[in-house]
């Protein structure tokens, strides 16, 4: 028993020594060192952020702290004077003690995102099957009605907005006005299914919109199979449009590429925008940051706020 105890004591002391030696090494660094926070690799916000600052996959420094959610990021940066991170634009900055940074000189807000001057943003795009290429006439009408719901109706836009999308209300109309042109909505559609595919980042917005749309459209069913932006066009208009993964509406969290031809679609376009904001602690003096500065911080080549100026 005594031997064991003394062994334990020695183990504790040894560990404490290791801890202390580590401390003194850490103590030499200045207080302006940057603590980098990032989301886990499966996060859509991280994908958008890394895309906007030009950080290649795997280029991220290992010297980061991984947080589990948007709220977690806000809390952690809000508690760390040396922290830098990124959150979605809909985050409550003040409540979390964080400061949104201007990106390339433009302050983030709904207005600057919508007019395109704030660059750390990406469009959420949709594309439908071609006219006449649906399983039934009713399904085509329902698809068209859903597109109208998420692009033109005040109700649909507000659902997307509360799911984190940035929407433009200028041309929005009440849903009741739009619904009259789709008589199919008045019948029982519970035997029909609207299938979606493409970007995983739109999932939150679109599932909220489909959920709200369902009771307005005779309880039509929906099935979401989001696998990535590159499948968005392929599975409604491209080679996979008649395959097992075919869908009525495809989504992409970027503009459709040139080789992704959407001219044949019944409808296609942008339904909302997604913006990411770089944030620091409210006590940090930093106000503005550029893409290349963020790139250097997240790639690990700049590790001190003093080196930014």
């Amino acid at each position, binding site marked *: *028993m005594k031997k*064991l105890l003394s062994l*334990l004591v020695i183990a*504790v002391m040894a*560990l404490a020594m*290791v*801890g202390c030696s*580590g*401390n003194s*090494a*850490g*103590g030499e*660094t200045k*207080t302006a*060192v940057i*603590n980098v*926070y990032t*989301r*886990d*690799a*499966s*996060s*859509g916000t991280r994908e958008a952020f890394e895309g906007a600052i030009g950080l290649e*996959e*795997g280029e*991220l420094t*290992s*010297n*980061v*702290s*991984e*947080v*589990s959610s948007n709220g*977690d990021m806000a*809390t*952690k*940066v809000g*508690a*760390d004077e*040396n*922290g830098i991170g990124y959150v979605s634009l809909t985050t409550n900055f003040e409540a979390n003690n964080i400061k949104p940074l201007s990106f390339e000189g433009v302050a983030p807000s709904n207005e600057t995102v919508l007019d395109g001057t704030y660059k750390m943003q990406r469009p959420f795009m949709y594309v439908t099957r071609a006219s006449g290429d649906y399983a039934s006439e009713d399904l085509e009408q329902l698809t068209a009605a859903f597109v109208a719901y998420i692009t033109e109706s005040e109700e649909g836009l507000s659902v997307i907005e509360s799911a984190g999308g940035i929407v433009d209300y200028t041309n929005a109309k009440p849903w009741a006005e739009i619904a009259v042109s789709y008589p199919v909505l008045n019948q029982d559609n519970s035997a029909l299914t609207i299938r979606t595919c493409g970007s*995983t980042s739109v999932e939150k917005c679109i599932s909220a919109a489909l959920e709200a749309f369902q009771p307005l459209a005779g309880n039509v069913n929906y099935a979401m199979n989001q696998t990535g932006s590159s499948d968005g066009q392929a599975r409604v208009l491209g080679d996979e449009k008649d395959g097992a993964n075919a869908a009525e509406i495809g989504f992409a969290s970027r503009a459709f590429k040139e080789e992704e031809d959407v001219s044949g679609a019944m409808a296609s376009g942008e339904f909302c925008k997604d913006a990411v904001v770089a944030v620091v602690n409210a006590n940090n003096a930093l106000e503005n940051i550029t893409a290349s500065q963020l790139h250097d911080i997240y790639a690990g080549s700049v590790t001190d706020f003093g080196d930014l100026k």
Partner: protein
Amino acid sequence: MLVNKKRVKRNKSLDKFFHGFFMAMALLSASFIVIIVLFVFAKGISPFLPGYEYGQVNIISFLTGSLYRQDQGIYGIGFIVINTLVCSFLALLLSFPISVLTALFIAKIAPKKLGAIMQSVVELLASVPSVVYGVFAAGVIAALIKDLASSLGITTFGGSSMLAVIILLAIMIFPTLTSMATTAIKAVDKDLEQASLALGATRTQTNFKIVLAAAKSGIFAGAILGLGRAFGEATAVAMVAGNKLFGPTFDLFDITRTLTSTMLAGLKETSGLDYDIRFSVGLVLIAVIFVSNWVLNYVKKKVGNN
């Protein structure tokens, strides 16, 4: 008489029915454990088998690696295992003396009423949900550590650190350790104590040399249970661990990563290999708990013998 016989027969068949019914329930609950283990095992082993759909992972580099980067496809959890062991054992070391002394106080020293109050306080602590501990750790412990670190001139990730994990776990396993130790101390034979007192030993001498020695097997069982909780705690730990991508971490003020926080991070949003590998991490966690329980049981036997 005839009626009675009928009734006896009926009661017997009723008995038989309930016998079978209870047996079925017991089998059902037992089969859950089998199903869970089989499922986790099948899922967790799949990334290491040839022909795995997302590309086979090398099991050696998985078990010994010191970098965990989903974006680069590098999954090494050797350092995470070390981090988990270090955090859990340091938490146990921190909590153990406090718990044993508290238990001794509750069972032997405190006046009856105070002892009862203290015991219910400890039981209350055990019933606090882990996420509440997590919020407390993120808001209070982390802030204290941040201040402590900055007074020493060290920069921390807002207080998220190995030290925060250790203190959090020590608080979380305290009720388990204390209630087990209290039960063990209360179960010590009164004759032993009285014999010691009769021989002229003081109360304190009796408490430490006789009561604790006689109760050590039960106290150790509490330590094993507590360590199990420390290994398995996920939610609260993930809130203050900081999830470092490489390691192992030995600096108390540096961020760390444990097996459970690794399994939890981004679980809802992921798929493919990154999803399946969490089951492999779970398997490793089960193995770590198994081995450390076995070692502690061995130590317990050794300690119990002298």
